[in-house]
């Protein structure tokens, strides 16, 4: 049987790929694992490799053509097969069927879910997003759930066999989780403990969780449920208790007028539309915080209490708190001081996506010099956050919302945002924190200051 080359699913959200460039010509010999083409997904351009060795007999797609996931890209004639015959056989289009694309419904619900889940998402637009999500949910969930429950096709697991660690298999049995619903993150796609523990039905597109929340069975009177804390929960509990007990926190809040910034954002987004980049207010805050930190390096530091040493950094490595089911992860965006808004956007989104999929590398979660936590997407006006030692500061960002403010002697409606800085008083004093906030306010109220 000739080996059909089909469009692989190279990311969770990918439904189709563009064949950017063929690296081989019809009739070329191909080795197993050899790159035969470049494929562009919704996120990146990646090499596409041949599974089998043989001769490239059919190139089903011209360069620049789009193919749905699972659709035929080409055919390799294996040893002993005649190239001409294979070519003839596939002249009519071949047998490979595109894998049924995920219904847009799931994608949409999943996207909304991610907005809600991301604590650092589109602050400005969240009200509308959440509204859409809840409006969409009721009638769409039935359809979404039906798709979710359909048999799952496994890729890269060798003939459909699911590889799973003995421990993960046992936990899945205990929890009655169908292993077919899981995606393994171990070597060769092996399902391991953390995949089973991290599993919620939402992994299949977020639809189930969105649906389940309002339907969650209420506890009946007299009923008790004891829930063992997950390892992540225990780690969070330990770290935060240690911080709140050992670090003398103090808090300062400031209101920032982001009306002009919001308008600037709209203008920039209109220009960036063809690049499919959509900046969020969060990106401006990251940029502004990085600039403010460089001017107030006391806050861009890590404190070693055992040595009474504070290390200040020339790089701003921003921890960006992301909430995930039953916990939170703080991926670190490195070197923010050297990034433009577009790069901040793209790198942040990549980090959020992988944080929620729990696929961050260890080094992507360490060595932050300052952290930003945002609950703006939940409509929270202001809150205070617990410092993540050895960092000495964390900025809690509230929602950007229209408020009645006094300008001169008039009351006007302006888009306002309140941020609260928590500082470690062993390292940072009140006036230093206030100076930092003043700088941040100046930058965000007049974003052109970023050019200065």
């Amino acid at each position, binding site marked *: 049987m000739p080996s059909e080359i089909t469009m692989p699913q190279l990311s969770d959200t990918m439904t189709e790929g563009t064949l950017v460039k063929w690296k081989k010509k019809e009739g070329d010999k191909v080795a197993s694992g050899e790159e035969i083409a470049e494929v562009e997904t919704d996120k990146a351009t990646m090499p596409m490799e041949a599974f089998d060795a043989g001769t490239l007999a059919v190139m089903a797609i011209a360069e620049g053509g789009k193919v749905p996931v699972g659709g035929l890209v080409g055919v390799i004639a294996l040893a002993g097969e005649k190239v001409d015959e294979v070519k003839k056989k596939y002249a009519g289009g071949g047998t490979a069927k595109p894998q049924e694309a995920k219904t847009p419904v799931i994608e949409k619900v999943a996207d909304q879910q991610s907005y809600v889940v991301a604590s650092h998402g589109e602050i400005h637009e969240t009200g509308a997003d959440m509204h859409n999500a809840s409006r969409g949910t009721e009638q769409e969930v039935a359809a979404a759930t039906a798709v979710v429950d359909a048999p799952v096709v496994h890729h890269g697991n060798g003939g459909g066999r699911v590889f799973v660690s*003995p*421990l993960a*298999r*046992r936990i899945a049995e205990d929890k009655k989780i169908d292993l077919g619903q899981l995606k393994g993150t*171990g070597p060769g796609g092996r399902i*391991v*403990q953390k995949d089973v523990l991290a599993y919620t039905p939402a992994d299949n597109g977020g639809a189930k969780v969105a649906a389940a929340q309002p339907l969650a069975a209420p506890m009946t009177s007299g009923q008790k449920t004891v829930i063992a804390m997950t*390892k992540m929960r225990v780690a969070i509990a330990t770290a935060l208790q240690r911080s709140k007990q050992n670090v003398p926190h103090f808090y300062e809040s400031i209101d920032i007028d982001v009306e002009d910034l919001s308008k600037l954002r709209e203008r920039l987004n209109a220009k960036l539309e063809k690049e499919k980049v959509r900046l969020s207010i969060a990106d401006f805050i990251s940029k502004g915080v990085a600039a403010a930190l460089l001017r107030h390096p006391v806050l861009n530091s890590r404190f070693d209490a055992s040595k009474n040493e504070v290390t200040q950094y020339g790089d701003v490595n921003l921890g960006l708190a992301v909430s995930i089911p039953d916990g939170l992860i703080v991926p670190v965006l490195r070197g923010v001081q050297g990034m433009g808004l577009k790069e901040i956007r793209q790198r942040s989104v990549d980090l959020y996506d992988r944080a929620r999929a729990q696929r961050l590398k*260890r080094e992507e979660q360490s060595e932050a010099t300052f952290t930003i936590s945002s609950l703006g997407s939940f409509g929270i006006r202001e809150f205070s956050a617990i410092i993540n030692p050895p960092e000495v500061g964390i900025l809690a960002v509230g929602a950007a919302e229209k408020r009645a403010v006094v300008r001169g002697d008039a009351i006007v409606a302006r888009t306002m945002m309140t941020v609260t800085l928590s500082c470690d008083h062993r390292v940072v004093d009140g006036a230093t924190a206030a100076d930092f906030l003043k700088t941040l306010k100046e930058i965000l109220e007049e974003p052109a200051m970023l050019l200065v």
Partner: protein
Amino acid sequence: MAVMQFKEALRAAMTEEMERDENVFLMGEEVAEYNGAYKVSEGMLKQFGPKRVIDTPISEAAFSGLGVGAACMGLRPIIEYMSWSFTWVCIDQLVNNAANIRYMSGGQYKCPVVFRGGNGIAHQLGATHSHRMESVYARIPGLIVVAPSTPGDAKGLLKASIRCDDPVIFLESEKMLGEKGEVPEDKDFTLPIGVANVERAGADVTVISYGRPLQRVVRPAVEALVNDHGIDVELIDLRTLRPLDLETLVASIKKTNRCVIVDEDWGYCGMGAGILFKLQKPCFDYLDAPIEYVHSDEIPVPFNHYLEEAMMPSVDRIVSAVKEVCYR
């Protein structure tokens, strides 16, 4: 507690036991007049005299056999080897005679003898003098194999070995003799044979090792894993290689679901391979990743310093293995 060198702790153990029991005596090459090839027995000839601290000719087979016979007749010999690598020439005395005499005599004879000396790779001694003999002896029913990793453990385990009624293979390292540590001075301090030490409790992965690599690479690797990689390692020092404290190991792996074994043996049929065999069945359903075994490269031990270092487990190799089983 006193701070002592490893060799001083060994000497204290032997001295205390010889003071306590007149049947205990020390025999080996250079142990008496020269005060020990590595000065472990320094001053013992002066304290106990030539009847109880005895220099032997260079014939491991002869004085090992003498030790087995003396033990069978009621004495408690301590036989010192300059290197365990030399026991290839007297292995018959240990494996056939010492290990089997109690069984073959139907319990009429017991064989309370301790064979001790430097084991393993001890820096530029070349291929023939760098053998790691633990897997050779730990597989023999009838023998007990002990491998301390600190001066305190060395004293407690050597005293327990001297008091033990079965033949004990006691594995030291020339490179450890100068290491210092806290040692209990209590003359009745012993450590139980067959009990492993959970040196650091942890939740994420069980690291198992013993003897010299613990101080050389395993403890620094664990420190790096905990501090730099955020991996909560449970570190177990086996202390005794036979009988293996399987209970402690299995309980730990059931908790952490991951295991890395580190030793300086060769991998194939190595000590760690034997431990792995004992673990895989009771732990199978609890493992989230295959057990990793970090061992020396399977080549003759090079004389060249850099090559010798390169063939042995390193901090980096241990860190990578631990990260691999933790999927990090």
